[in-house]
């Protein structure tokens, strides 16, 4: 069997005396989708941003493809962040450049990794707009002119264009209308399968993980209280908190 693509041990992040997350450990296998669920404030975003290197944990180890992420030089980590990794923000405007066209948004990672042929950048942008179901006539429009769902799809295209291996997503369907969410989930599921992506997806929406995640981690007050295969956890929750979540008492 192959090695995990991401391996996490004893991860802890504090905000002063307050715990962001603590005692986190798991392995993510190539091609696997891991869902992280829990109510608001349970530490999901904190964990994700520590994994992606946006925040520095106080303790623990993160190993990507055999490399110690926390010991890595920043140059190297940022290079990974724009090549092999991708990060989809909850609010599309945090992950997009609102001041430049959709085409430039898609092309940025390519240019950041050395693409210097305008014609080919253009062709790749068109191809990716197509894949995320944005009409290619919108290529020169700014994302400010896009709906929330389109902005989120553009953010996904912009992230996936370099063919990353590991994708972090923080509430990618949050704040969207239900019908828009469904379409986005469908699209994500297709892309994840086609590209064989390894994904860590944070959400408070169990419907999202039921559709996308192979495995689940349930978080409460910064700790993982239960983890397992998605169907197992959702259909036969062991921890009282998970039972509450599943019975949708805590669902917003």
């Amino acid at each position: 069997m192959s090695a995990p693509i991401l391996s996490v041990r004893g991860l802890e992040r504090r905000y002063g005396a307050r715990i962001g997350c603590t005692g986190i450990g798991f392995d993510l296998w190539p091609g696997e989708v891991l869902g992280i669920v829990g109510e608001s404030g349970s530490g999901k975003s904190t964990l994700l941003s520590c994994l992606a290197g946006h925040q520095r944990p106080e303790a623990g180890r993160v190993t990507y493809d055999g490399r110690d992420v926390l010991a890595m030089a920043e140059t190297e980590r940022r290079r990974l962040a724009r090549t092999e990794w991708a990060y989809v923000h909850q609010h599309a405007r945090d992950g997009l450049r609102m001041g430049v066209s959709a085409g430039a948004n898609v092309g940025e990672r390519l240019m950041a990794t050395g693409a210097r042929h305008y014609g080919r950048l253009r062709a790749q942008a068109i191809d990716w707009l197509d894949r995320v179901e944005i009409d290619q006539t919108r290529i020169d429009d700014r994302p400010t002119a896009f709906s929330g769902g389109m902005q989120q799809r553009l953010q996904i295209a912009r992230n996936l264009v370099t063919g990353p291996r590991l994708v972090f997503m923080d509430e990618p369907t949050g704040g969207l209308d239900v019908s828009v969410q469904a379409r986005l989930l469908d699209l994500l599921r297709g892309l994840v399968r086609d590209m064989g992506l390894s994904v860590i997806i944070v959400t408070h929406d169990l419907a999202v993980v039921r559709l996308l995640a192979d495995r689940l981690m349930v978080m409460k007050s910064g700790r993982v209280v239960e983890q397992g295969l998605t169907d197992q956890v959702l259909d036969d929750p062991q921890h009282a908190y998970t039972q509450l979540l599943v019975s949708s008492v805590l669902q917003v």
Partner: protein
Amino acid sequence: MSDYNFAYLDEQTKRMIRRAILKALAIPGYQVPFASREMPMPYGWGTGGVQLTAACLTPDDCLKVIDQGADDTTNAVSIRKFFQRTAGVAVTQATREATLIQTRHRIPETPLTEDQVLVYQVPIPEPLRFLEPRETETRKMHELEEYGLMHVKLYEDIARHGQIATSYAYPVKVEGRYVMDPSPIPKFDNPKLSDCPAIQLFGAGREQRIYALPPYTQVVSLDFDDYPFEASKPDHDCDLCGASDSYLDEVITDDRGGRMFVCSDTDFCAGRVRAGHAGRLAGRNKGAAA
């Protein structure tokens, strides 16, 4: 004059600026922060350049000041007078005679020499600012050589205008390392930045930054493989001196749509006219035409 130290600034300030200049020369294209001083003129007047000039001038220097290529604009005249008064240095309008040239928006047409220093006035030193306003982030981008954003800007240009429409402050890469804003010179001047025998110093007063190109530094204008950089200029010859290879200003000559193209570098143009060259409208002059 006796109220001021030589060239207005006190010796301690000049030493501080010289240290920044030396650092800038040691790391070509890198923006060195410096403690910009209040100068007796508004920021838009090139206080960054003025401080560099003040720190570099010696009593034996011969100073030339140009604004858009001309020695006789209000801005150029004021700065020249300022240093005549505070440093008592010789002044000239002839590029060849000058040992220090302070400029806004142009590089002289006459090739510079190893005995000269060219000081640029810079409004915005950060070439990445256009797309990334956060200073902490742009500093990081320079440190880690993450310059993809510069091409995003050029991409936008082509998407919008069908070509790279940036015609001033066209970004360059210095010695394969730092991306630099050459100040708002026309891109026609960009090739002169490279392999130049003179020392080139850039000063941004309000932004408190100094950067530099030591002699014979390699400077490359950014572009795309299928949209290569072109040092374009109006497709005319100078109407006064006939020069076909100098940067031209378009001048309206009357209210019936008459116009002429003349060298923006007035010293260069006058020199050619004196040497007997003549353009389409030879005999008239830029001042009388305007």
